[in-house]
């Protein structure tokens, strides 16, 4: 690096994130968040999910607009393919979470990113969800993420970015650790 290098800018406001962490030290309750979505069945395996509000920083919060997602299954499942499958949304969430984390950690470590892309794959045995083999679980038997990253950093520094992103990733934690789930009918 030279003394005239432009400041690292990955488009992440690290100061705001660190400011939030500092504020939480004085008022831990502002860290308590709730994420929400709604889902409505349309037809067959097709449903639509909306995301608009959440709770955090001690107040009701809103996205700038309502985000809407179609969920369905492909033609191979005798469905209409109006949207990706729920398990694919899990991969979408994991890839999005890890990549956001990479950008934030890179900013914090003054590493300029030029390109970041990844391919995610999840292995699944259909015997599980079809109830064809009680020894097979419904969910993934494994998930792989392969990153290609071009950045102003050594290979070990790039590996450390990816490792730190996993360490601080909410979706990675949700997938790798058990979570209590309660489903009610009213």
């Amino acid at each position, binding site marked *: 690096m030279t003394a005239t290098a432009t400041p690292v800018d990955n488009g992440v406001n690290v100061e705001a994130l660190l400011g939030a962490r500092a504020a939480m030290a004085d008022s*831990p309750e502002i860290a308590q968040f709730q994420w929400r979505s709604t889902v409505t069945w349309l037809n067959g395996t097709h449903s639509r999910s909306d995301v608009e509000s959440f709770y955090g920083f001690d107040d009701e919060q809103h996205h700038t607009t309502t985000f809407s997602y179609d969920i369905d299954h492909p033609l191979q499942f005798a469905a209409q393919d109006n949207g990706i499958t729920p398990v694919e949304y899990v991969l979408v969430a994991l890839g999005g979470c890890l990549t956001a984390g990479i950008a934030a950690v890179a900013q914090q470590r003054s590493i300029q990113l030029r390109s970041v892309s990844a391919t995610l794959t999840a292995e699944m045995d259909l015997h599980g969800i079809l109830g064809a083999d009680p020894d097979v679980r419904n969910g993934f038997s494994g998930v792989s993420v392969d990153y290609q990253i071009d950045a102003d950093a050594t290979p070990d520094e790039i590996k450390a970015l990816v490792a730190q992103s996993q360490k601080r990733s909410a979706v990675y934690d949700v997938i790798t650790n058990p979570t209590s789930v309660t489903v009610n009918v009213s």
Partner: protein
Amino acid sequence: MPTTTALIVGAGHCGLAMSRCLSERSIDHVVLERGEVANSWRTQRWDSLRLLTPNWMTRLPGYAYRGGDPDGYLCAPEVARLIQDYATESAAPVLTNTTVSSVRPSAGGYLVQTDQGSWRARTVVLASGAATAANPPRQLEQCVPTGVATLSPTDYRCPGLLPEGGVLVVGASASGIQIAEELHRSGRAVTVAVGEHVRMPRLYRGRDILWWMDASGILDERYDQVPDLLRARNLPSMQLVGTPERVTVDLNALRSAGVRLVGRLAAIRDGIAQFSGSLPNLCTLADLKLARLLDAIDEWAARAGVGGDRPPERFAPTGVPHAPLTLDLRTGEISTIIWATGFRPELSWLDVPVLNRKGQVRHDGGVTSAPGLYLLGLPFLRRRKSSLIDGAAADAHDLTAHLAGYLGTLSSGNPRAVSARALAGQHAS
């Protein structure tokens, strides 16, 4: 009621180092000890435990290891003897078998109540240890099925005293890897649940890894100079063991010996242990962290012109096993769970408003917000080496200087110190 200028709680290496420094400044003081000198080294250590630091690193204010094996590692009774010898040679004013039951602000300083009567002290130094109590995960502990014994490293003594059968060791820091290795050698089937860990080779380029960390100044890094102090203070202990053979016990060594490695113990549901799928990343993090440490050491060695006879080495990446994600604790396969999940200070008797929401003492390098109340011996208190015996000297020296300065403000009637004192009293009411 007896009165003293400084009252030190705990006659371990930290309390005695502080006592020595106070004596050098002729500050009158007393050291209260719940048991005998070096009590936890006599009562809370397993039979085979040795210090993680080599003998030459056993340095205290005005004292150092003098035996004939500078590169060896003291066993627990030897540590207790050394600390006792230090107390004797320092003529430390220790009152043994005196258990403190409360410390609270009172006019002119603190009122300290013990099972042997009360003291008034202008200043108090908390030196009762960072590892006084084991810290098992309570939520998991209460889900362990009946029939499976559970114990902490402070209760563990030797393999022969455990019930027959397999053992699940939860935690892969110093205590966890040492106990797992010993249990495996005794013929047990051992599973280790691996959370975040700090991988460390015993020897690097022919010398003890701690020699490199000491010589290069890494252990002297100050608390006010690290980028993330919260992280530094919560770092797990180094995966080290002190043995005559100076062996490295890391995850690769455990795995090749036949110990089963699984992810962090995340939950126990209906008697089934669930392990996190994060093991590959935790191994990568530890490998990368070790590589950064060795890079720093090599850079220093090149600058300092040291170790030219032995070139830099790099260790094989941690081989991540195909680990099971669940383990049924009801089958009898696991008869014992050992919570090697860390330790915490035991300060339930501290009745001074200096605790954070997690019950930990808030402090700035051992100086609390309560005037005249100090803390010693916690991880990264003032330096990276603060939790090592070798770290006590510098920390005790610094805190003694601060304490002496505080006494000076009291005698000079500095209004700021007086108002701070009044504030402490106000909080206690």
